[in-house]
């Protein structure tokens, strides 16, 4: 049970941390006079979503035998969160890909930030509901894929380290680049 919970909680916590940081950035953009008003993470968008999918897959695969009851417990909050994620994606595309002036702040930016907050809050509710369900019902864990999971993860992380090393070794040493911003617009 402990290994199972860790497999679900680790990607979930990583996702929550990354998503909360994105939420913080989406709100910080709204304040006039703040640096990086237009700034937001672009290159990490896919990685954050990967973590979400990872967490969902883990939850679903770990508790397949009780999936109908688990789905019942988290259904509404999850779909509301999914709705907020779609709104966030549409606003993101509009702000960073369609609107000519990146520094302009309008209602779409407020919607973008609100969608972040809503999605974050709802996803936290989903995690709490899932944990409560696990605590109350002690569902049977599907451990069929455990022997493959960790070796697979090690291989994948090794593969991902290669481009990360390339990025680190070729970084521009004159400026400190903490996060690539709007890379798709300024590749």
């Amino acid at each position, binding site marked *: 049970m402990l290994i199972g919970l860790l497999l679900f909680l680790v990607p979930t916590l990583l996702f929550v941390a990354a998503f909360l940081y994105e939420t913080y950035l989406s709100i910080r953009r709204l304040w006039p006079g703040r640096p990086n008003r237009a700034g937001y993470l672009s290159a990490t968008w896919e990685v954050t979503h990967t973590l979400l999918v990872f967490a969902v897959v883990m939850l679903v695969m770990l508790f397949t035998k009780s999936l109908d009851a688990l789905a019942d417990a988290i259904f509404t909050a999850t779909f509301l969160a999914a709705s907020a994620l779609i709104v966030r994606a549409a606003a993101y595309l509009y702000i960073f890909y369609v609107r000519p002036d990146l520094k302009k702040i309008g209602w779409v930016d407020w919607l973008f930030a609100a969608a972040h907050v809503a999605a974050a809050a709802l996803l936290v509710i989903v995690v709490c509901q899932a944990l409560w369900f696990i605590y109350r019902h002690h569902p049977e864990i599907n451990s069929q894929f455990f022997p493959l999971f960790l070796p697979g993860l090690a291989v994948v992380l090794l593969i991902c380290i290669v481009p990360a090393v*390339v990025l680190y070794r070729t970084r521009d040493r004159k400026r400190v680049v903490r996060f690539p911003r709007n890379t798709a617009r300024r590749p």
Partner: protein
Amino acid sequence: MEHATQASRVLMGDSLGFHIIFVLFGLTLPILVSWFELMGIRRKDPQLTKIAKFWSKIMALLVITGVISGTIIALQMSLVWPGILKFGGEVIGLPFMFETYAFLVEAVFLGIYMVTWSNKRVTPMLHWLLGLGIIAGSTASAYAITSVNAWMNLPTGFDIVAGKFANIDVWRAMFSETSLVEFVHSMPGYYLSAALAIAGIYAFKIYRTKRGDRLGGHHKNDWLIIQKLMIFASIMFIATIITADITGKYLARHEPAKLATIEMVDETAGNVPFVFGGLETDDGRIVGPYIKIPDALSLLAGGSADSKVTGLQDIPKNEHPPGAIRVLFNIKLTLIIGLTVLLAAYFALKYIHPKWLASRPSLLILGLGGFAGIVIVEFGWMITEIGRQPWAVRGYVTTAQAITHTHDITRFGYFFPLAYVVLFAVTLLGIRKIVRDNAVERRS
């Protein structure tokens, strides 16, 4: 409950129909971008590198939209249809895990590929190599998800002993014959449709200029891209036709109900004709315009004219797929014939009379015809999915059993399709902005 099931099916269909557009571009663009980048490096042609860079921006934009629709599908698959994974999660868990890994590799490589475009310290060859990581990630991800679908069509990798799973073999479930057949057929189909659509976009670009300028140096690169894409599309077209034959033979062996419904085969027999067009009435007559090729279905299904094809009379009536797949198949086949003519006409005009190729009607046909490939892919998946009905996991779990019984998806049924339309519109506007920015950059 029937209403909720139908609503859920429609919602899932909407989500998959929307997502598949981004899938086919998400799989093809990394290959095309990589190809143009490599050509640019080998020919030392900065124009080709610029084209690769331009399309990589569009690729990144499409991935953003595809990522969100993919996330929604993952949630719908597990929460709206919990019965599928409740039944088979122990067997089919591996591809889900594999897909997540592949998705992570794709995301990491894509992010780094995009941020290193203008980095002088990254050599062009190293940058190109980073692009291969995106291709590997997206292709592996596509295989994993296709294998889940294949498993739903023909579940393998387990035995049922006394009502419980036994002898579970997750590798056999993931690398089954069905998975390979579906994968080798769908991949060239994606490549073909995306390549044709991009060629179509360039055709429209040339279409908008004056007649005298269309074959001039101003459009030299546009014609070069169209030529390369049409060659690529032709190769993929041939691959799709070959793999379609393999798929047809596979259907005859393993999914006879689907084939019998598509081809209106009522009685199991040999020397069965292939019927293209027409609709079957309740009394078994075929009405409307149609072409009947004697023995052709037997030949396609079994390799000889007297091969037996299973008829619907030998399949329980409650397991018959909806007849709508026959209509979808006929439309799909008509479009495939249209594409054959389009590809043949393109190469004929290109080498015999290039001026006609640059005429407005030709460019318009090339531009519109390019999008037929996307419709074919959509219809192909609709035939696969609707053709499996009434099963969610064939032979084990029906669609009605797989659906959640406690929540009615109709509450969200209106929001998601509307949201997809908005997302699609914003994506198109984003692409338009990239195209305009690129034009300004080129002029300056």
